[in-house]
């Protein structure tokens, strides 16, 4: 399967990429790791008229810790996150999640900025971003994760706006990410992340709706003294997941509860 024809240009800086997007117009799209975009283009689910390649932009590939934040450059690859000692020491949940994204080949190319901008319902990093109140830094502003993910494949980004960094709070407490899938490289059918932060828990759920969600009802129950098993019953509150070939809506609700309980029990 061959993608439809398109024009191609390489950006040399963030400003250059934004300029190229503006010049090329509404048919243009940026390509980062391309691990979702290229398969979609091959299936002709996406047919951009112009691709602006971000892979030649220097200095967007980093993990650094500053003022209580873990700052990750948008073009940082999953493989880099898996290997980063700094990430393991300051945000071990994300290091654990990175290991579960795709497979080694996908992790070589795929980027954290690409995952955020693509906003797949089954993406893993958006859940962590929501749970921890991360901020998505673009070429022009900082967007809180809760405002960034709007719907399936839909974010607050303007057509010519570029993700340049994702900032998470340093979070070193007990944590766990449990991803339920048929095969190890599959997207999550449902996944749940938990993180001990300050005197409470943060809980997020992947793929139980068009975007990831933060499970406030579970967090509140835990704060009120509920056991993990009691609190986990609240994991499906307010959710209305789709049925598809992988799972019915009811099964996804069940998974949200079961995975939440297990993640809380296993968190270390």
């Amino acid at each position, binding site marked *: 399967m*061959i993608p439809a*024809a398109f024009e*191609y240009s390489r950006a040399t800086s963030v400003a250059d990429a934004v300029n190229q997007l503006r010049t090329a117009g509404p048919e243009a799209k940026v390509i980062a790791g*391309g691990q979702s975009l290229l398969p979609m283009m091959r299936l002709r689910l996406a047919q951009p008229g112009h691709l602006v*390649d971000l892979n030649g932009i220097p200095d967007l590939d980093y993990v650094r810790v500053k003022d209580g934040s873990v700052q990750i450059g948008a073009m940082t690859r999953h493989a880099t996150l898996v290997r980063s000692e700094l990430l393991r020491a300051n945000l071990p949940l994300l290091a654990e999640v990175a290991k579960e994204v795709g*497979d*080694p*080949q996908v992790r070589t*190319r795929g980027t954290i900025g690409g995952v955020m901008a693509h906003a797949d319902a089954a993406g893993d990093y958006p859940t962590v971003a929501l749970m921890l109140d991360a901020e998505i830094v673009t070429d022009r502003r900082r967007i809180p994760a809760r405002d960034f993910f709007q719907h399936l494949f839909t974010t607050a980004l303007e057509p010519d706006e570029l993700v340049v960094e994702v900032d998470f709070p340093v979070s070193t407490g007990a944590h766990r990410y449990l991803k339920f899938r048929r095969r*190890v490289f599959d997207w999550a059918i449902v996944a749940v992340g938990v993180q001990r932060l300050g005197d409470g828990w943060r809980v997020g759920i992947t793929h139980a709706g068009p975007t990831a969600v933060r499970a406030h009802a579970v967090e509140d129950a835990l704060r009120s003294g509920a056991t993990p098993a009691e609190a986990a019953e609240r994991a499906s509150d307010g959710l209305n997941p789709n049925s598809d070939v992988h799972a019915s809506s009811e099964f996804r609700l069940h998974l949200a509860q079961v995975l939440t309980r297990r993640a809380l029990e296993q968190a270390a």
Partner: protein
Amino acid sequence: MAQLVRLTVNGSPRQEEVEPRLLLVHYLRERCGLTGTHVGCDTSQCGACTVLCNGQPVKSCSMLAVQAEGMAITTIEGLAPADGMHPLQTAFWEEHGLQCGFCTPGFIMAATALLAENPDPTDEEIGRGLEGNLCRCTGYVNIRRAVHKAAAAMREGAGAAAPMGG
């Protein structure tokens, strides 16, 4: 509009104009004549098209040829010395790590990347290292055995500083 790409394939520098939509796998097979890299699933799942880009494994069906600008690509043809086989090739043969062989180049390239990072992997680590590759006939047990055997041979070879393969 055609785009210039300059890259190295199995050690040979190349420079040519390609259509931007040309996938790396098609560039390797059709322009370079390197048909050892297979097109399997066409949906970037099976890993049959795995090659190394600057030593890292990628699915060459999920990368544009123009994106290989400045990179060193290694395919299955570039793995072995001219007069022999790579230890992974020998081990897949000896341990019956293949039946139809269609997935084998991708498995061997993924295993090459795995062993470069982890010369003595456990069963679990081999499973995780090869999770991006599918085999539909031999099964994974013999493949895992082959990777263990090649790893041992490569460690021994490295210790003895002897040339590998053959």
